[in-house]
């Protein structure tokens, strides 16, 4: 029971600590301190990614948990949350803040690939509409199952697939990969970038939206029907 409130696991070169969303903040941070103290030698020096889920964490609460980790020789580097309050708190403390969905997938840790020839590439999948002001960044691909509204932004080193209406700003191949593509069921982005190329949507209202794919051909972005 107690163990389920706090989940600690090794991810890459650091630790990912997930705190239960519902438990009272003071008691869960106290519990976290106890857990770390029990194995202080093991945890000492680790870089921590803290996942608080949808819980809104105020700046003073964020400072206290950061101090709690500092005192035990752990370094808080990244905060994951769905709450804008939490993300703002993390920003204010110069921590890297990400929506929970944007994280390196670690589900496959230790598992052999199902089929080595179909290993695929990593990415993030977000299953809701991105509203104005939301930003998603990924070192892999990005899949949105929902709309991308005007004022939202996606930046991906790989491809971007939107199963919905794409109306925000999207940048695929952001690290310079000119083979990256952008697909959407309704392609009317405010601005579309692939690698170093940029285009905007035509102003005229189109009749009937159809799935389209944007890619670079002969040194410019072309948009064609997705078949």
């Amino acid at each position, binding site marked *: 029971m107690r163990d389920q409130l706090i989940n600690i696991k090794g991810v890459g070169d650091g630790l990912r600590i997930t705190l239960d969303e519902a438990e009272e903040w003071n008691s869960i941070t106290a519990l976290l301190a106890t857990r770390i103290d029990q194995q202080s030698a093991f945890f000492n020096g680790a870089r921590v990614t803290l996942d608080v889920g949808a819980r809104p964490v105020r700046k003073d609460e964020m400072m206290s948990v950061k101090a709690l980790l500092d005192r035990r020789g752990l370094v808080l580097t990244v905060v994951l949350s769905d709450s804008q309050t939490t993300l703002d708190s993390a920003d204010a403390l110069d921590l890297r803040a990400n929506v929970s969905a944007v994280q390196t997938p670690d589900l496959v840790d230790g598992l052999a690939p199902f089929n080595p020839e179909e290993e695929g590439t990593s990415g993030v999948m977000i299953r809701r509409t991105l*509203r104005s002001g939301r930003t998603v960044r990924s070192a892999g691909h990005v899949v949105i199952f929902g709309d991308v509204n005007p*004022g939202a932004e996606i930046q991906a080193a790989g491809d971007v697939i939107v199963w919905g209406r794409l109306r925000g700003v999207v940048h695929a191949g952001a690290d310079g990969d000119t083979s990256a593509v952008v697909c959407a069921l309704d392609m009317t982005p405010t601005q579309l970038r692939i690698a170093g190329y940029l285009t905007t949507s035509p102003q005229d209202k189109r009749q009937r939206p159809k799935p389209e794919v944007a890619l670079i051909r002969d040194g410019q972005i072309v948009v064609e029907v997705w078949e």
Partner: protein
Amino acid sequence: MTGKVVTITSGKGGVGKTTTTANLGVALARLGQKVALIDADIGLRNLDIVLGLENRIVYDLVDVVEGRAKLRAALIKHKSFPELYLLPAAQTRDKTAVSPQDMIQLCNQLRPEFDFILIDCPAGIERGFRNAVAPADEVLIITNPEVSAVRDADRIIGLLEAEHKGPGRLILNRVKGDMIRKGEMLSPDDVTDILGIKIVGIVPEDENVVPSSNSGIPITLNNSSRAGKAFHNIARRLMGERVPFMSLEDSGSFFKRLSRMFSGGGG
């Protein structure tokens, strides 16, 4: 009685939050509800003016939060509706004088005594917004049929969803049927297409609104005003009634279609 806390917000300024709060308060009181209105726009208070209660203010929200006045002493009773009360904002302080926790406590004190507690949220997405939204059971998002207002409403809905207060219901204010027909203004369909939330009211543009706000007599008391009628209908929908959307003009097949859409959808 367990009062329902409804926050009226928009992101963008000037779209009609205060006018809507005042009119919904009066309309609910006319329907026999006991209503408290809270002006959360500390430093830029307006709701007292629109309700014609400016000269009766003795204590304000900050006085209550900081313990200088009892909540009961700060509530101002409306001239014509003894079941309608206003808790005015402080004019000399700023948003940081109150915390979200203060607002939750304040509303918990009001809940047992009122049917509805309406909070007039300040423009913006900072502290004032968080204060106003923290105690809300339901959020109404006001927007105008223009791109910039809809963009801000979308941002607000995203923030509400992140705080588990969303998505809320939409009031589309200052709609002009003739401009929509000419394709010069976003239609309710265009707006819901982007925002993806339910509409609880469509308020037509009405030139009587400004003089009525200036004189402190909310437009919903003017029985011949279409905007006033629209606010009255929203109040009834807040009480759980199913009220069909009125057509904004006689020949407006578009709005008839819309009213069918929403009366069926329960919005």
